[in-house]
């Protein structure tokens, strides 16, 4: 049952990216361009996404386990460290250069456009590089 949940949630996520136009890098860059012709779209998406997810996270605190799995796999509340800060900053620069973050980039693969495929290949290379430099123990 968890497998169906994963497939259906992924599908809903993909539809949401198209409906909100977050799959469109030009739309994202227009939001990031505060000094230009600013586009508030991404703020509406974040607000809309936070409403149901806030409710879901409150509800999960009242449960011992998820509906279709044995246990919750939620990362522990770690400390703020240099990795988090450096990683978020590097990600933000890359996001600003291309207008793509991981979700929309993967979703846009269905257009089979060369620039999207190139971006995703580079993104995977960046992830592989991280794995190489910081292998999991």
């Amino acid at each position: 049952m968890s497998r169906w949940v994963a497939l259906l949630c992924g599908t809903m996520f993909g539809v949401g990216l198209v409906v909100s136009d977050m799959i469109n890098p030009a739309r994202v860059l227009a939001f990031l361009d505060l000094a230009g012709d600013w586009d508030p779209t991404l703020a509406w998406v974040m607000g809309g996404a936070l409403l149901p997810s806030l409710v879901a996270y409150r509800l999960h605190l009242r449960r011992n386990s998820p509906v279709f799995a044995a246990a919750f796999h939620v990362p522990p509340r770690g400390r703020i460290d240099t990795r988090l800060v450096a990683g978020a900053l590097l990600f933000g620069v890359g996001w600003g250069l291309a207008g793509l973050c991981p979700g929309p980039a993967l979703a846009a693969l269905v257009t089979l456009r060369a620039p999207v495929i190139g971006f995703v290949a580079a993104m995977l290379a960046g992830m592989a590089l991280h794995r190489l430099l910081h292998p999991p123990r």
Partner: protein
Amino acid sequence: MSTLPALPWIWPLAGGLLIGSAAGAYLLLAGRIAGISGLLADAAGWARGGARTLSVLFLSGLLLGTFVALRGRDGTTIVLTSSWPLLIIGGLLVGYGTRLGSGCTSGHGICGLARLSPRSALATALFMAAGFATVYVMRHVLGGSP
């Protein structure tokens, strides 16, 4: 830079509700975080403690939902303005940075903020600030694309 037609707020609000509901349902039903960079690393076999089959299925659904929704949306095109070098450098930074920082727009920006996690709040503030600064420099200091 391109000029996009303005999008009425109801669309991003509806899309955001779908994305947030998907993330919320994935937590309540399957017990996992719907952070795309984490799911991708897990699907590639580069993460610990994941559930590879579930991650592959979630990402397959992501492609499926996008494909179907794009079919139903008339005419609106995906506009990519960045040059090839910027796309490649951007991709490398996004891939490396999201792993180093343990999350991206969905993992920190939606799931983490919904958990009221201080780590995610800081990460979201930082990647937003870095994105604003990068676009400012590219468009208004250097004056080129993106």
